[in-house]
């Protein structure tokens, strides 16, 4: 992103020439209240974010955003997004078949990505990432999609389904004010995602139209590994022994130049730095990790002081990578990370993209192991 600086050999006397940039005229109205005092006053390293919380003072050095995002105004909080599985409404038919239904609405919304920085986002249900839809393998799924946005949108699920249900420009694209019901079976089990597939695709994705789609394995279908499958099944006794979180690696191009200004885990840069994710040593940690970062070919996950097993796409019950501390995902790729902290000294353990640029532009986080 940063061009190699070259030394000037000749001097124009205008050595202090100014630079002028004009924003692309694409924003909506900016919020009117941007005028108040600008974040906390900073005295330098170590004095910042006294209110933010649970981290070690000065742990971020001076690599941070100034101020705090108003999550209440945004209508979503990255800490809630970690675990707020949306299981929809389940009904059982006369044949005993379970049908799970969700209602999802596309909404245009100004989102405060970083303190005072407003982004004219397109969202599912007014949040980025959209609702984490969680179901069980084999269920019939119905997703009632209402388009409340001013633009055409769709929901394209990564899963096995008919072309008619694919949520692409020729099948399941919904005009503003319209509705479409996507209907298919929950398969294969794994960690998946959905996103808008309206054109232009890049714009619809980087504006915020995506979310995680998790299909838990049905233990009855996996007699060879019932216990493992059960541990992944939300609500089961074995599942309760785990802490599960969903992390969507995303990024935002705030000035529409096809390069990201902000990188994050679950939208808000440094959210889990300002307030680390609490992890209990007694329970194992499972992360549903999704990469939807636009413009950059890959994103990555790296944890400090620990190693983990990785299930690419989450479609297997045995790890596809064992004992690693860094994995990478291309756009749309996802997987499940399983990590054990039981032997660790309590404290703060960093995790972040191992592209340093992404890390310093917001995809930097901490676990607080207790």
């Amino acid at each position, binding site marked *: 992103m940063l061009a190699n600086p070259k*030394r000037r050999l000749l001097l124009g*006397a205008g050595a*202090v020439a100014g630079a002028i940039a004009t*924003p692309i005229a694409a*924003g909506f*109205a900016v919020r009117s209240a941007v005028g108040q005092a600008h974040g906390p*006053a*900073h005295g330098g390293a170590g004095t910042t974010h006294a209110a933010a919380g649970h981290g070690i003072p000065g742990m971020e050095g001076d690599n941070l955003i100034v101020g705090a995002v108003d999550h209440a105004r945004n209508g979503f909080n990255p800490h809630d997004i970690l675990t707020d599985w949306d299981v929809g409404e389940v009904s059982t038919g006369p044949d005993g078949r379970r049908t799970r239904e969700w209602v999802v609405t596309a909404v245009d919304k100004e989102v405060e990505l970083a303190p005072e*920085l407003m982004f004219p986002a397109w969202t599912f249900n007014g949040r980025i990432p959209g609702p984490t839809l969680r179901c069980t393998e084999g269920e019939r799924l119905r997703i009632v999609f209402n388009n409340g946005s001013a633009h055409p949108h769709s929901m394209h699920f990564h899963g096995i389904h008919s072309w008619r249900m694919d949520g692409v420009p020729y099948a399941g694209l919904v005009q503003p004010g319209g509705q479409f019901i996507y209907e298919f079976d929950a398969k294969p089990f794994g960690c998946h995602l959905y996103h808008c597939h309206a054109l232009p695709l890049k714009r619809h994705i980087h504006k915020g139209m995506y979310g995680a789609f998790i299909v838990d394995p049905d233990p009855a279908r996996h007699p060879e590994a019932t216990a493992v499958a059960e541990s992944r099944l939300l609500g089961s006794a074995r599942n309760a022994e785990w802490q599960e979180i969903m992390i969507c690696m995303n990024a935002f191009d705030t000035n529409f130049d096809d390069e990201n200004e902000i990188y994050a885990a679950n939208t808000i840069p440094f959210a889990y730095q300002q307030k680390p994710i609490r992890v209990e040593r007694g329970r194992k940690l499972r992360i549903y990790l999704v990469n939807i970062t636009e413009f950059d070919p890959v994103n990555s996950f790296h944890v400090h002081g620990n190693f983990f097993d990785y299930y690419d796409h989450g479609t297997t019950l045995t790890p596809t990578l064992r004992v690693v501390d860094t994995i990478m995902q291309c756009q749309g790729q996802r997987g499940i990370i399983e990590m054990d902290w039981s032997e660790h000294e309590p404290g703060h353990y960093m995790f972040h993209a191992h592209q340093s640029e992404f890390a310093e*532009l917001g995809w930097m986080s901490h676990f607080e192991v207790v």
Partner: protein
Amino acid sequence: MAPDSTPAQALARPASPWRTAFWLLLPLAVLLGILALLILGKPLERLTEGSPPVEKVSFERVRLTPGLISLSVRADGSQPVTIAQVQVDAAFRTFTIEPPGPIGRLGTARIDIPYPWVDGEGHKVVLLSSTGAAFEREIEVARATPSLDTPTLAILALVGILLGVAPVATGLLAFPALGTLSPAGMRFVLALTVGLLGYLFLDTLGEGLEQAAGALERLRAQAAVWVTMIISAGALMLLGRRGGRAPEGAALAAFIAFGIGLHNLGEGLAVGAAIAAGEAALATFLVVGFTIHNVSEGFGIAAPLVGRRPRLLTFVGLAALAGLPAVPGVWVGAQAVSPFWMAICFGIGAGAILQVIVEVTGLIVRREGSAALLSPASLAGVGVGLAVMYLTALFV
């Protein structure tokens, strides 16, 4: 003058001061009415409502002190600009902004970013506004901005003296030689002065316009350069001729020295800015170049004194007038100055030079008639003057 001395004035009734006042106040009242309609009635609201904000930010100064990058920025746009976040080298950084809050239209703010910048390396600062717009400033070679302690000021003053005073004084040493010239030779020398000044005029004006291009569009800095150039030329002309006569001799030499002094102020700014921009290695080179270049200026200052017996002190004064402004130029330039004020400064300099071009040309005409302007000696003088200045400028 008697009011009824002409028929036209006799026809016009004696103007009542109330009447005049009324007809002057009427347009003012109408103007206020139109403005009130626009601002209070908002007839254009349908057009502007919901239109995306336009934001512009120009970086006026960048100062580097150990562990700190300080920026002075000026904002413009359809509404105040809020600097929401700051990135340095593609990393979010903590910062403070003074005054806090949004920057009003054409307002300025100072942004301090604690950052371990590396001496001699490049850095890039990006300001993100509340609308997500990004404003970039590249620091091509990071060097500490010279502090204003005595040793630094002294060495910078030395640079200024070498740059300004020394060459002008050197050029003035040619004065006795000028006295031995024939009339055609003298005409050549005066025309040469016009040529030298002509080059400086173009150069100064060009610098001013270049600086102006770096300022915010709405400050109309380029127009400001032309306007200050013309006004300062006119004002100096007025000052020079306040006795009713065109300046000659020592007075004209002083005006030339003053104009050249303003030009040298600009050269000082350039050298100071080069030092501030981390190009100190170039500074010696620049000083050598400007020194060679500026010797001819001394020559030009001496020309109007030919045939007179100026005192030594006059020469000292002229050299100081023409050369010393380079010293504050270097001091100020090393601190990095807003491009707008640099542009204005160059505009004044260009005006001062234009004034002396007019006066020296006038001197040739008074001495030998206007035909002398087109004589071979004059044309050759102007041509040689321009060429010498251009060629010596290549040393810079």
